[in-house]
C-alpha cells in the first residue's frame, strides 16, 4: 500500500516521486515509490542494504530509467536521459566512491566539461579558472591551492571538492549517498557544518545513511524504504530509533529457505575445520577470531565496509594481515595463498562473480573444470584426459542442476545470473572442499535459483564440510545458518546461536553506535 506523502506545510516540494517502479530481470526492486522533498528541506532516506536506495539514486542521477511512474523536479517533469541531464537540471550527487579524476587538479576536476576560455581562443584561462575555484573552495571551507592534484587529497577533502563542484553547477538539490563512511570524526564534523551552511543558503538536501544518529541529527523528514517500498515517511520527530530499526527490518517472514536438515546441527560438537585467531589488519579488521566446525553453516553479517568480505579474502590468502593466524583442519597455515588454501581443501566464492568468479567468455565446461583441472592429468606427462573432464563436468552439472538448455560449450556470459552462480558453485564443489567460504552467494539472482543454491549449501554441509556464508541479507542468514556472527567496523560484535536469531538484534549490532542518538 503506497503511503500518503507528507503533507507540505509551509514550503512546497522541489522533488516529488509518484509510483516509481523498477525491475531488473523480473525482480521488482522499486514498488511504487512515492515521496516528496520539500524545497529548502533535508530528507533522510534510510533502509537496509538492498532496500532500493541505490536504484533510486541511480534513477534520479540519470543512470537508470524507471519502468513507470513520474518524477517532478521544480514543477517540471523530470526524466534525465544521462548524468549530464541530471546535472543540467540542478541535481548533484555526492557518492561514496567519488567521481573525481585523481590525475587532474582540483580546478580541472571542477571545470572539466566547461573550461573557461576566452572567446575564439582554444586556451584555458587558467587564472580565471583558479580564481573561481578558490572562491568555490572557500565556500566549502577548504583552504588549499586550486592547482593541487586530487591524488594527494584525503577522502574528506575530495568530498568537499565534489561539493564545490556541485555548487559551481548551481545545483538546487544535493543527494548525499553515505557521505560519512570514509570520513574521520573531524571531517564528519566539518561536513555537518557545511551541510548547515548549504541549508542556510537555501539548498535542498537528500541524505542517505546507515548511521542513524546522523540521520536523526540532520534531517527534517525521513523516508523508510524496505524491499523497494516506502514503509513510512514523516517528520523526523515522529520516529524513535527503535521504531526506525523495526520499520527497516519489517516482519516479512517468507518460506524461501529449505528446512534445515537434522544432521546440520553439529555446530559445537563437530571437529573444527577452520580456525581464525586474532586476525588484525589496521583499518580493516581488528582482532577477529572465529571457529568453523564440520557440518556447520556459519553466517557472517555486517554492513558493507564492516570488514566481512575483507576477512574472507584474508582467510583465502587474497589479502594480507599483520597479526593473527589461520588454521585449516588444525594446521596453522604460514604461507597463505589461494593456491595453498585450495590444496588444503578450501573454496572461496567471491562477491563479484563477473570479475573474479568466472571467465565470462569461457565455456560452461571450461569454467566448471577450472579449479580441478590438475586432477584430470594422466601420467606420465600430465596431459588432460578430456574424457575424465567431460565426465566430471556432466556429473557436477546435474548436482548443481544447471539449466539443461545451457550447452557445455556456451560462453558463461550468455547464462542468467542464477545459472552463472551455479557454475561458480559447481566449480568449487568439484574440488570437494572441506571449508567453503561464500561471499554473497545469492547476490543478484532470482528467487528460484536462490532456493536451489541454499539447498546445495545445506547438502554440502550435511556431507561434513564447514560453510562460512557472508550476506547483506539478514533474512538469508537466518534461514540458512546454524550460527550468525556480526561484524562492525572490523570487529566481531555479536555471536548468535540459532535459538537466538533475531533480525532486530543482528541489525542493531551491525549498525552499532549509530543507535546511540546524539541529542
Amino acid at each position, binding site marked *: 500500500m503506497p503511503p500518503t506523502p507528507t503533507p507540505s506545510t509551509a514550503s512546497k516540494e522541489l522533488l516529488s516521486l509518484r509510483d516509481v517502479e523498477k525491475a531488473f530481470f523480473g525482480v521488482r526492486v522499486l514498488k511504487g515509490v512515492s515521496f516528496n522533498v520539500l524545497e529548502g528541506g533535508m530528507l533522510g532516506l534510510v533502509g537496509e542494504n538492498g532496500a532500493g536506495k541505490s536504484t533510486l539514486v541511480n534513477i534520479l542521477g540519470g543512470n537508470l530509467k524507471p519502468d513507470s511512474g513520474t518524477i517532478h523536479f521544480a514543477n517540471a517533469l523530470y526524466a534525465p536521459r544521462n548524468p549530464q541531464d541530471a546535472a543540467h537540471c540542478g541535481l548533484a550527487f555526492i557518492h561514496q566512491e567519488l567521481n573525481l*579524476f585523481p590525475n587532474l587538479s582540483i580546478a580541472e576536476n571542477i571545470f572539466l566539461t566547461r573550461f573557461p576560455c576566452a572567446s575564439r581562443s582554444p586556451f584555458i584561462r587558467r587564472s580565471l579558472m583558479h580564481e573561481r575555484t578558490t572562491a568555490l573552495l572557500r565556500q566549502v571551507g577548504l583552504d588549499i591551492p586550486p592547482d593541487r592534484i586530487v591524488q594527494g587529497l584525503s577522502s574528506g577533502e575530495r568530498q568537499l571538492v565534489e561539493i564545490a563542484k556541485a555548487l559551481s553547477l548551481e545545483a538546487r538539490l544535493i543527494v548525499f549517498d553515505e557521505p560519512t563512511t570514509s570520513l574521520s570524526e573531524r571531517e564528519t564534523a566539518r561536513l555537518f557544518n557545511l551541510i548547515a551552511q548549504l541549508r542556510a543558503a537555501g539548498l535542498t538536501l537528500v541524505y542517505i545513511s546507515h548511521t542513524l544518529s546522523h540521520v536523526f541529527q540532520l534531517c527534517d523528514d525521513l523516508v523508510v524504504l524496505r524491499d523497494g517500498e516506502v514503509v513510512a515517511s514523516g517528520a523526523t520527530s515522529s520516529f524513535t530509533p527503535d521504531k526506525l530499526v523495526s520499520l527497516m527490518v519489517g516482519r516479512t517472514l517468507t518460506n524461501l529457505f529449505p528446512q534445515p536438515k537434522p544432521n546440520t546441527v553439529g555446530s559445537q560438537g563437530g571437529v573444527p575445520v577452520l580456525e581464525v585467531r586474532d586476525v588484525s589488519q589496521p583499518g580493516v579488521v581488528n582482532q577477529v577470531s572465529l571457529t568453523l566446525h564440520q557440518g556447520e553453516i556459519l553466517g557472517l553479517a555486517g554492513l558493507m565496509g564492516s570488514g566481512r568480505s575483507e576477512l574472507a579474502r584474508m582467510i583465502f590468502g587474497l589479502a594480507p594481515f599483520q597479526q593473527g593466524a589461520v588454521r585449516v583442519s588444525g594446521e596453522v597455515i604460514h604461507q597463505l595463498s589461494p593456491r595453498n588454501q585450495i590444496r588444503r581443501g578450501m573454496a572461496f566464492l567471491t562477491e563479484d562473480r563477473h570479475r573474479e568468479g568466472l571467465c565470462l567468455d569461457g565455456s560452461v565446461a571450461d569454467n566448471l573444470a577450472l579449479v580441478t583441472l590438475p586432477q584430470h592429468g594422466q601420467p606420465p606427462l600430465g596431459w588432460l584426459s578430456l574424457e575424465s573432464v567431460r565426465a566430471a563436468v556432466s556429473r557436477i552439472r546435474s548436482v548443481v542442476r544447471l539449466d539443461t538448455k545451457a550447452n557445455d560449450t556456451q560462453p558463461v556470459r550468455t547464462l542468467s545470473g542464477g545459472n552463472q552462480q551455479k557454475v561458480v558453485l559447481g566449480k568449487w564443489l568439484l574440488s570437494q572442499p572441506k571449508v567453503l567460504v561464500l561471499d554473497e552467494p545469492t547476490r543478484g539472482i532470482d528467487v528460484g535459483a536462490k532456493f536451489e543454491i541454499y539447498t546445495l549449501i545445506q547438502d554440502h554441509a550435511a556431507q561434513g564440510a564447514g560453510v562460512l556464508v557472508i550476506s547483506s541479507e539478514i533474512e538469508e542468514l537466518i534461514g540458512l545458518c546454524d550460527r550468525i556472527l556480526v561484524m562492525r567496523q572490523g570487529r566481531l560484535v555479536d555471536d548468535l546461536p540459532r535459538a537466538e536469531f533475531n533480525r532486530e538484534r543482528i541489525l542493531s549490532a551491525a549498525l552499532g553506535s549509530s543507535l546511540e542518538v546524539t541529542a
Partner: protein
Amino acid sequence: MNRFHQRLIELAPLLLFVAMLAFFGAQSPKFLEPRNLANIVAQASSTGILAVGMTFVLLTAGVDLSVGAIMFVAAAVAGKMATAGQPMPFALVVMLCLSLTFGGVNAFFTAQVRVAPFIVTLGTLFIGRGLGLRITETRALNLPDSFLMLGSARFLGLPLPAWLFACVLVLAHVVLTRTPIGRQIFALGHDSEKAKKAGIPTTRILVVVYLISGLCAGLAAVVTLGQLGAVSPKFGEQKEFAAIAAAVLGGTSLFGGRGSVLPGTLLGTLLIQTIENGLVVMNANPYIYPMATATVIFAAVLLESLRRRIH
C-alpha cells in the same frame, strides 16, 4: 617508499641522461662537442616527433603500432612522385594527407567501432607495410637532392629537423596542458567510463588522438626522408617501438592518464638517441646496438612499474 624515492623515480630519466652524457663524454672527447650534440638532437627528431604522437595515444590508454608503417607508405608514395618528376612541396602535402588518412582509419575503428587499438593498429601496420612494398616493388628509391636539402639545411645553427621537432614539442605541450581537450585526454585516459559519465566527448577525443599520431608519423617520414634521401623496404621499420620506449621512458604510462611531452617525451627520446650516438662515437661493435636498445626498453618498463607503485 618515501619522498626521496619518489623524487628519484621522477627524476630518473633526467639523471640517466646526464649520466649517459658524462659516460660517453669521458669515453670520447668528440662526444660533447656542440656539433655532435646538435647532431644528436637532429637525429632524434624523427623518433621524437613520432613519440610525441605516441604520447597522445598512450595518454588515452591506447597504443599506435602502425606509425612506422605509415612512415613507410608516405615515404614510398613521395619517392614514386619525386622520381616521376612531381614537385617536392606537392609530394610533402600528399605524404601528410596520406598519413592523416591512415590515422583516420585507426581512429574510426578504435573510437567508433571500439576495437582494441592494439589490434586495429596491428592491422594497419601490415596494410601499410604491404602497400609500401607494393608501391616500391621492394626496391630502394633514391630521391632528388631537394629532399636531402630539407634534412641538412640549417637555421640559426640547428638543422631544420631539430626545429620541426621543437615546434611539434611546444605545440603538443601547449595542447596537452592548456586546452580543454588536452586536459580531457588525461581524464579519459584515467578512466574512460567515468569520463563518459562526466560528459566528456570520448569518441571525438579518441579520433583526434589517432589523427595526431598519424600526422606525426607523416612529419617523421618527411624528416627521415630528408636525412636519408632514400626509401628502402626497411624504412620506418620498428620505429613504433622506439617511439613507445621514448614516451614510456619519459614517464608516460602505458595505462593512460599520466605523462608529459615536455619534459617527458623529449627526455626519453634524447636518452635513446644519446646512447645510440655514443655507441657510434665510441666505435662500439654494431652487434651491441640491439642489446643497448633492449636495456633501454627494460629501463623504461622498470621505471614505469616503479612509478605505478608510487601512484
